[in-house]
């Protein structure tokens, strides 16, 4: 019998995603299987919130049917089961982003994670001033003359907490401008990030422009300045491989509901040595060691930042979502979505009167595209697309300063995920091609 040997590299090669696979994936998402305004739903609003696969919905249901109890207290069987599920979920999600278990803090969402860091840092100034806590806190305390640097493309969630931190501490907020093509200018950035910079916060991938920021270069600038680096991973963690240790950021945040999990759960990653000394943001039950009527001592991370009864079932569901994404392969998902993003931009740029924000066709972008339709307000564009069963986001996408920079108040955004086919993008493009005629623009 003739034996044909297969080269090892070929055996291991994982096929790229295609429409056939996506159609199988779609079977896991019941919500996608419906008619909207008489037409099959095309869901292109995953940048705002994603849909849930059955495995996630079932994980949450199974928790409530089999294991529901308060965690970290009580000696009974269910309490043990619930605690195990909750902490196993933490390990799964830590592995998902290349973090250690104790560096993975549950939050409600990315917004809460960023506010947690912002308040922990201003609390550090208060503690340091009174000689409370670790001696290292004085190095984390911001004061007048210090600078916080963000970018002009930030979501409000990664802007306003830093505006308020600057207000509370007397530090100054500066920003890295965005060029007309929707990119940060690194040379310009090197002139802004300097010895006064104590904190640098930026998004991994823009929720409006689709740009992927040069994280390594920005982290290097932050490190050279001795600044803390905060990464908004809301549009990256769900869509591409993320390794927070390899990126060497100090903090990173993301939301579960943008990565196939329910609302109400998110993650803050922080380097252990920082989390263990930072003062807590919220205080109360479950995060203390000793409490007297006068004061309390706090647990190390992650419990230090998890006051009160936690979002247990959501954490379990988020772990199920992470598993779903890992099994599909984030690198494969990223490549598929990049292809859909290119298809969107190429198609949109071919239409008269359409201005795509951010990188043009052929340039790197994630699987989303925001655009302006000349003579038609985004709200009307969204309504028109909805009448054809197509769900997109309209408005400023929580990035008013970026829109102002680009001379716009509102745009329309289509954002894809692993369950979108090229047909979805084509139906969307076909619908957009009719918008200006309908509104006689």
């Amino acid at each position: 019998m003739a034996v044909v040997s297969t080269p090892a590299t070929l055996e291991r090669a994982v096929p790229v995603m295609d429409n056939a696979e996506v159609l199988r994936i779609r079977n896991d998402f019941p919500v996608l299987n419906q008619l909207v305004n008489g037409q099959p739903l095309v869901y292109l609003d995953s940048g705002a919130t994603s849909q849930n696969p059955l495995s996630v919905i079932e994980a949450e249901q199974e928790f409530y049917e089999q294991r529901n109890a308060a965690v970290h207290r009580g000696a009974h069987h269910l309490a043990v089961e619930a605690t195990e599920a909750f902490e196993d979920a933490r390990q799964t999600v830590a592995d998902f982003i290349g973090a250690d278990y104790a560096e993975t803090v549950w939050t409600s969402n990315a917004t809460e994670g960023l506010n947690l860091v912002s308040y922990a840092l201003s609390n550090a100034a208060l503690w340091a001033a009174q000689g409370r806590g670790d001696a290292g806190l004085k190095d984390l305390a911001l004061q007048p003359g210090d600078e916080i640097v963000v970018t002009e493309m930030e979501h409000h969630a990664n802007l306003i907490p830093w505006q308020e931190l600057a207000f509370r501490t007397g530090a100054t907020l500066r920003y890295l401008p965005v060029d007309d093509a929707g990119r940060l200018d690194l040379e310009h950035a090197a002139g802004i990030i300097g010895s006064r910079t104590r904190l640098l916060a930026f998004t991994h991938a823009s929720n409006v422009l689709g740009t992927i920021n040069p994280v390594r270069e920005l982290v290097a600038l932050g490190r050279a300045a001795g600044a803390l680096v905060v990464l908004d991973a809301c549009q990256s963690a769900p869509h591409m491989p993320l390794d927070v240790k390899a990126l060497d950021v100090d903090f990173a945040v993301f939301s579960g509901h943008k990565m196939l999990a329910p609302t109400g759960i998110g993650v803050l990653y922080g380097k252990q040595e920082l989390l263990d000394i930072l003062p807590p943001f919220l205080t109360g039950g479950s995060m203390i060691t000793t409490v007297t009527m006068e004061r309390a001592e706090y647990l190390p991370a992650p419990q230090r930042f998890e006051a009160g009864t936690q979002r247990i079932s959501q954490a379990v569901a988020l772990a199920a979502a992470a598993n779903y994404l890992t099994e599909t392969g984030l690198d494969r998902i990223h490549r598929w979505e990049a292809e859909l993003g290119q298809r969107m931009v190429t198609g949109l740029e071919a239409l008269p009167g359409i201005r795509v924000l951010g990188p043009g066709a052929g340039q790197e972008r994630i699987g989303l595209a925001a655009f302006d339709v000349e003579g038609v307000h985004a709200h009307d564009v969204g309504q028109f697309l909805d009448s054809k069963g197509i769900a997109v986001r309209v408005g400023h996408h929580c990035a008013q300063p970026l829109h102002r920079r680009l001379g716009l108040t509102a745009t329309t955004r289509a954002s894809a995920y692993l369950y979108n086919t090229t047909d979805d993008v084509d139906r969307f493009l076909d619908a957009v091609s009719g918008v200006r005629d309908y509104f006689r623009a």
Partner: protein
Amino acid sequence: MSLDQLYQQIILDHSKARHGSGLSQTEAPEGASTGQSHQLNPVCGDEVTLRLAVSDGKVAQVSWDGAGCSISMASASVFSELAEGMTVDELHGVIDSFREVLRSRGKVHADPELLGDAAAFEGVARYAARVKCAMISWVAAEDALNQAS
């Protein structure tokens, strides 16, 4: 409910015509009592600044500037045409009626005798997300009217 019932011809026409727009280039009539109101919908960025001039108990002039979707711009245009010449009391009645229709989720029909072209916005009431678009200039007008009268 079809899209054409929301975007009736009359609405699309008014969204282009924008009667009464050009506040910054328009002087209020001499001797009239005026009120002005700025309204912003942070969700979609719709924005209207509307000035209303009252003279001898009647609306002498409506003038506005704004940016927004076709519903919000058409609504400001329709309001401007409708309000001029009305007494203050009549206009309060019209605004109340318009608000009642828009907030009814489609249960209350518009009275074309009372609302004129504004009756075309009846279809908007079925689109909860768009009610504010239709109301924004009317909210500004009510505020301006209270200042002017």
